[in-house]
């Protein structure tokens, strides 16, 4: 069995957590990985202290990008925006618990890229 497809990855791929859309949301951002066409959108609602109250992701893609997005939504619930901005590549790789080559790394980091662009208030490229 390929190490990359561990049970937790496949579980998040087949049963994604927080899957869907939040409308309206305080933060919405969407982006894709032009290499493989994977697309992820993340919607966030904040509480009065600017902490993540609700989060949802939608999109389609490979097991790595989808599992990474699913895990990330669990990870950021209750965190402040400043804490969300601190999340980095190392964090994502620890969360996934697998080793990735440079191509698949882009899949793994797509959700983080979307999340950070949203958190920093970058305007959605498509809007």
């Amino acid at each position, binding site marked *: 069995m390929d190490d990359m497809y561990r049970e937790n990855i496949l579980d998040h791929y087949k049963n994604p957590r927080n899957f869907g859309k939040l409308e309206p949301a305080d933060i919405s951002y969407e982006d894709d990985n032009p290499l*493989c*066409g994977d697309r992820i959108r993340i919607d966030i609602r904040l509480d009065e202290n600017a902490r993540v109250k609700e989060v949802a992701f939608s999109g389609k893609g490979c*097991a790595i990008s989808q599992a990474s997005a699913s895990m990330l939504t669990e990870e950021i619930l209750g965190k402040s925006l400043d804490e969300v901005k601190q999340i980095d590549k190392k964090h994502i790789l620890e969360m996934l618990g697998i080793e990735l080559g440079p191509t698949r790394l882009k899949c793994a980091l797509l959700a983080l890229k979307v999340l950070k662009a949203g958190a920093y208030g970058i305007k959605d490229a498509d809007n």
Partner: protein
Amino acid sequence: MSRHSDHDFAKVRADFPVLTREVKPGVPLVYLDSAATSQKPTAVIEAMNNYYRLSNANIHRGVHTLAEEATALYEGARARIAQFINAPSHREIIYTRNTTEAINLVAYSWGRATINAGDVIVITEMEHHSNIVPWHMLVAEKGARLAVIPVTDDGELDLADFDEILRQSPKIVCVTHMSNVLGTITPIPEIVAKSHAAGALVLVDGAQSVPHLSVDVQALGADFLAFSAHKMCGPTGVGVLWGREDLLESMPPFLGGGDMIKRVTLTDFRVNELPHKFEAGTPAIAEAIGLGAAVDYLSSIGMGAVSQHEREIIGYALERLEEVPGVKVYGPRAERKGGVAAFTLDGVHPHDVAQILDSRGIAVRAGHHCAMPLHDRFGLAATARASFYLYNTQSEVDRLIEGLYEVKKVFA
């Protein structure tokens, strides 16, 4: 099962050193990505190696022994490439970096001299990005317009409205000879006859056809043909633009620099004759020599035999792929295509398919294969693609199928 041709092609594998390697200990390589780039036979590697070891010098300008040897090797390769595609003259063989540069050469030189506002350029929905984007750029610059030949559900060119398109008096029709995704072999002679009757030139993207089919530019009747060495057992870094001599003569130069000139003054220059007119600067000499060796190698086997072998493999591959529940293959039936099978597997992203196959030593491609409009046509973001060449065997197809069952098990 074992036909005469199978026996010969079993020996072909020994010509390709990389095919003996293991991807990891105990896992031999099954290379099914030749549509991206082919493997290289010893004859090609040695030809380039020998050039560097024995004859390395710059071409055309030196009078010393090495310079003359290098020039003879470089120009000798050109002559054999001309023969390989039955070009009437070696002056019609322009070395480029690859197919992409060959098409760009036409778009920049012929296109910018010819295309005006409102002119129509025809492409098809199954083109590789390299036969779309140069035309987008030209159209945007000139205020011209693209017309597109669509693709049928079966993955063939839909020529039902072609006459209608030709009534718009397009200047050029740019069409692939073989789809790099669907494997579809397009009816070039028919397209050429109609286009010429309507006064349009025809540029053929031969990146996938020249390596796999017997291609005769005089029989095709087209005006330009572009192809790359690296997909036909040759090295990366060199490709070819073949063009009709009268057209090439009439076109302005593309890149300016050394070798493409007859005479330069501080106020002017005179363009060199064909083919040098389009070959500014020191070219990829070793690579051109490598392409010459690749052409010799393929000719020694015979392109008819290569196509026949691939037809048997793709026929078998399609048969076996259809046995796997959840697999959908795109494109026409085996007898109407080359050795390419783009497919999807229900519930599994093509990248995951390719990743798990890789863990079993099987190299396939996953993605849009530089043909996003074609994937859009079929409502797909990506496909997995297995592509075959003269060194592939039926038992490698069996390994692919076993691998796909393994993928299904992981994602069950």
